[in-house]
């Protein structure tokens, strides 16, 4: 019996432009002699032949991109940088068909990535290819469960009622839950009176403290960056962070089933740390400040 030998290939799936993380990771992997293949959304939509097999025993797929043949068994790790396909890649279809094509392709890649036994950064979750992102309420609930303070957080019946907070001098941000629940703005009379925000439910979040720290988690390694008022980052020793915060944060990170994420804290004048928000990506600041260290950690997660 002859053992089959496979190439070990790293696939990078990118957005439709090159990201700093993927470029740096690709260079590092190539220096280690790894074969790196980059697939962009538009490549997958138009130039990749794909076959995904599922039966009682196994799941496997094969891809053909230009003359490159890749089978799922050969893949050593994947970096995924987008959550789903957008209809714009199927320009030759009607608007409705393009939307359908994007949904179908996302569903296919979701299942293919889920079937891989190798590291996928981040593992797909909650119908997002690059990992399940918790809502603010889920994140805060989890933080409280692990004994980390969170900013005051309320859902208020209208922008009109929320404007009362201005009289009380509350420093906060808000989102209009009907317009765009992910677009956060500073609480102000002008913005709250904007029709229809004045009548819509709004989510208000206090802004505690005036010192900020970003903690990047890459696998079980962490990298800390202090962020000043002008949002410029500076390298920070992790030993400067309270042990309890770090311990709890790693527990939160692990419970979210993410390999890479960045968590943002605000610190008030009394020294209380509040978990403010998070992203699934590494920010430009942390990449700039920690440079090769953070990429080495990423390489270690993927191979």
């Amino acid at each position: 019996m002859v053992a089959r030998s496979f190439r070990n290939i790293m696939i990078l799936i990118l957005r439709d432009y090159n990201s700093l993380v993927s470029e740096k990771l690709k260079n590092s992997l190539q220096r280690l002699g790894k074969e790196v293949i980059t697939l962009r959304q538009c490549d997958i939509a138009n130039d990749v032949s794909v076959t995904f097999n599922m039966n009682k025993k196994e799941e496997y797929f094969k891809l053909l991109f230009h003359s490159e043949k890749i089978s799922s068994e050969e893949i050593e790790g994947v970096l995924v940088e987008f959550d789903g396909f957008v209809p714009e890649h199927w320009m030759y279809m009607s608007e409705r068909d393009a939307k359908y094509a994007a949904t179908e392709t996302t569903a296919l890649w979701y299942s293919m990535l889920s079937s891989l036994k190798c590291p996928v950064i981040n593992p797909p979750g909650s119908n997002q290819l690059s990992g399940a992102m918790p809502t603010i309420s889920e994140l805060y609930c989890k933080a409280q469960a692990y004994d980390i303070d969170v900013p005051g957080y309320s859902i208020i019946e209208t922008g009109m009622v929320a404007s009362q907070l201005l009289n009380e001098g509350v420093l906060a941000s808000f989102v209009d839950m009907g317009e765009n629940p992910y677009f956060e703005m500073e609480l102000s009379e002008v913005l709250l009176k904007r029709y229809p925000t004045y009548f819509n439910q709004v989510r208000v979040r206090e802004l505690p403290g005036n010192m900020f720290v970003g903690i990047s988690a890459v696998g079980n390694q962490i990298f800390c960056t202090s962020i000043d008022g002008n949002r410029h980052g500076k390298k920070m020793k992790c030993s400067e962070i309270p042990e309890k915060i770090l311990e709890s944060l790693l527990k939160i990170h692990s419970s979210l089933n993410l390999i890479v994420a960045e968590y943002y804290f605000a610190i008030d004048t009394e020294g209380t740390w509040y978990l403010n928000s998070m992203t699934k990506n590494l920010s430009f600041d942390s990449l700039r400040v920690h440079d090769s260290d953070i990429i080495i950690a990423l390489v270690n997660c993927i191979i």
Partner: protein
Amino acid sequence: MIQISSLLLLIVLFRSMVLVCGVKYESPTRLLIEALQKEKADFLVLDQESLPDSVQMRWSLGKDGIGGMIKVGNDTVDIKDIRSVFLRFMDAEDMPAAKNDRALLTKTKSIIMSLYDLFDILPVNMVNRRRAMLSNFSKPYQAQLIKKADFSIPATIITNDPAEAKDFIDYNNREVIYKSISFERSIVQQITSEDLNRLNEVCLLPTQFQRKIDGFNVRVHVIGKKALATKIKSPAVDYRYSHIDDHNVELEPYELPESILNKCVKLTFNLGLSFAGIDLIFAQEQVYCLEVNTSPGYSYYELNTGQEISKLLALYLMEK
């Protein structure tokens, strides 16, 4: 902590409330409301079509946990008094009244999003949690989870390579169906000679092909640890659309073998659901699971068989 002078605060007695969220006149929601009435449950309906006019809510997450009020018309419920939630909102964009009224649309969306944010973390019986309902976004992904619950799945290929598709179809002697990959509704169809002639079109978009399983369909509605099964007799490949080909459909209650019932309950639990509609095919040699509906339109089965699915659901929501 944020504090605002009272708008919603009313004195309410301690209650143990079931919240029903959906379109009041849509059959599954309507049947549940009737069942809750029969069981004399304390419940409140958040009818999607009247959300902007009738619902006000405020809640917050603080050191003491989740607190706040939901006001529906003249009725106010303390969030701490919510016992369970039935969640079946439709996409706000699909509401007829919201089509030409942007203010109405965004107001409705804002209430639904606020409720979702709350329901994501509210520690009560939730039928079903939003995140758990996402598994059927990708059918082949859900099939991987189905396999983990020890069910068989039909051999499947998803491809945009016409040659691969043809090989699969030939290997299975043309006993092959095709259907959508995502949650987008599609009519399941068997491959015909005409389809073979246009097989080259799969290069435009990957298509899901599956070996056709001969046997009879059974829909199992699992509610908590209980289940009601319905046998479907129809010559149609997709019995939901049998009327298109003038095929008859007969539905009747079906007694599930205990081992299959246990697998269905396990699968529902594994998917993080408390209510699921599981599609099975009983073939001669084994039982295949095709799909799990995470927000099942159970009314079709109840109205055709008299099986009291809504009653079981109501009792589950009223459980202490």
